[in-house]
């Protein structure tokens, strides 16, 4: 089969773009495993940097996971009822509120962090605990859950299902738990997936809000880039990827299975 020069050109261009995007990732991963980056691969491969990173920064990994989980939980508890309320109200006020909610995403993280510090900085206990960072993360990730959940709730059949439950005697709270929640699972899961991802990688806000005792993974990464060898920082990236990629794949699988079940 004879392929046109146009096809070959397109293929080459695609491969070139792929390489442009992927090579830096591979270089970074490789750097984390190389004994001496400036001498190149010829200096030999080693796990020494990985071990060193783990010894110095393991607490940041655990704190990041803890933060992401707590953030997802808080955002669900606040965001799902909020989405329900906004969909139900559907007036000028609710639409304005929806826009306001996105403001912390549009604003530089540093600005929101500064506002939090100015207001709550004097409460020492709170300021120095990881909960302070949690507040920032919840603020930042809330719209990423509320939006997909609202989209699912706006589908036509949900109000009718609620009316059906009401006709069978169920009051508003029971309807929320029996009808609204189970039929919004796909939206909630998509939102949680986004929230966890964003919380794990969040740097702007966190960098302003953290204390030496509450360093998250991305903050630790910045720390190691600034203060340690390039190889250590690269090994850190490797650890970050090893942690987040399986997590994301698992969450994605759960969510796609759930939404498939709903479509049938």
């Amino acid at each position, binding site marked *: 089969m004879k392929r046109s020069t146009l096809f070959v050109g397109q293929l080459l261009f695609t491969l070139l773009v792929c390489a442009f995007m992927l090579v830096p990732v591979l270089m970074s991963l490789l750097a984390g495993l190389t004994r001496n980056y400036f001498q190149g691969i010829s200096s030999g491969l080693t796990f020494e940097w990985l071990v060193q990173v783990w010894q110095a920064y393991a607490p940041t990994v655990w704190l990041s996971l803890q933060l992401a989980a707590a953030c997802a939980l808080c955002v669900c508890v606040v965001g799902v009822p909020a989405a329900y309320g906004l969909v139900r109200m559907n007036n000028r006020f609710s639409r304005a509120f929806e826009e306001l909610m996105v403001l912390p995403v549009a604003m530089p993280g540093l600005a929101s962090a500064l506002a939090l510090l100015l207001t709550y900085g004097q409460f020492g206990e709170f300021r120095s605990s990881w909960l302070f960072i949690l507040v920032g993360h919840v603020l930042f990730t809330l719209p990423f859950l509320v939006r997909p959940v609202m989209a699912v709730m706006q589908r036509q*059949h949900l109000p*009718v*299902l609620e*009316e*059906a*439950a*009401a*006709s*069978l*005697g*169920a*009051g508003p709270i*029971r309807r929320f738990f*029996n*009808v609204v929640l*189970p*039929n919004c699972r796909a939206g909630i899961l998509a939102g949680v997936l986004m929230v966890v991802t964003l919380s794990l990688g969040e740097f702007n806000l966190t960098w302003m809000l953290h204390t030496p005792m509450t360093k998250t993974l991305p903050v630790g990464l910045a720390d190691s880039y600034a203060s340690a060898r390039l190889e250590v920082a690269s090994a850190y990236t490797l650890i970050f990827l090893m942690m987040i990629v399986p997590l994301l794949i698992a969450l994605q699988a759960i969510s796609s299975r759930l939404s498939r079940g*709903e479509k*049938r």
Partner: protein
Amino acid sequence: MTGTTIRLEGCRKAFADGTVAVHDLNLTIEAGETLAILGPSGCGKTTTLRLIAGLERPDVGRVMFGDSDVTRLPIERRDVGMVFQNYALFPNLDVAGNIVYGLKVRGLSAAERNKRCAELLELVGLEDHGKRRIHELSGGQRQRVALARALAPRPKVLLLDEPLAALDAQLRERLRGELDQLLRGLGITAVFVTHDQGEAMALGDRILVMEHGRVAQLASPREIYQQPANAFVASFVGNLNAFSVIERTTDGLKVSGGELPWNCTSLPTTVYCRPEHLRVMECQGHLRGRLVGQFFQGAQSRLLVDVGAAQPLLVDSAEGVIHPTGALIALAVQPQVLFTL
């Protein structure tokens, strides 16, 4: 399970955009009666049902169930069963889960729930389907599950919103029969909304025909068909031939195509008759016209006869004699089947 009387007293409902869906509606539905609310889309029939259900609150007026005023009660406290247009079955629960939902809400024990569920599955003929998922059911089965779910808590009133509209024609016919038997057996007060006159006639003890948010006529199916209150009811329920009267003759009315027998003293401008009341004659008849179309429908044929009026006449003929299209034929009519509006 005995029904309750439902009374709407001067109910009016307008929507946010100002359109009035229901104007000052007064309506009494007797206990145990099946009322069909019939009308074209946008006539206020669904709003009327939702007012009875408690899904809408009237702007003015009262809704009475028996002697109690339920105007301000939401649907969950009215003790009504409702079958929704697309059934609104809970996709996250199986068939049995759907049926017992209302019993669970009322706090019945698991043993009681299972017993009632089995009774209802038997009632609607789905004994082996309790564990099925909703998406595994056919349209007809979903309709039955919706009915069983609505009946499970033994409501005093059953409300049905276009209960058969989502089904294909044959299934609709069969389920209509089953539904009729069921409603009669239960003696429950039932109200259903439909735009299908056949369904309304077959199921309703009485039919409420609505037009632009008002009652056009409330009467038994027979009365609605034979003595329609106005031209809207007459043309919405069944087909109608209209004759414009040209002048009075000694013993009849001159219309285009011939002369109709008429022995009343009044002189109407228009008289009407149903298609099945015109008879095709060999040569002698009241009217003469040209056969411009014919449609074989099994037990009878629908003929279109041009008598020179704006619309061809509709004739339902059960006679075996076949006339070729284009032939001149005569039509006879009895004076008592002609009516005015």
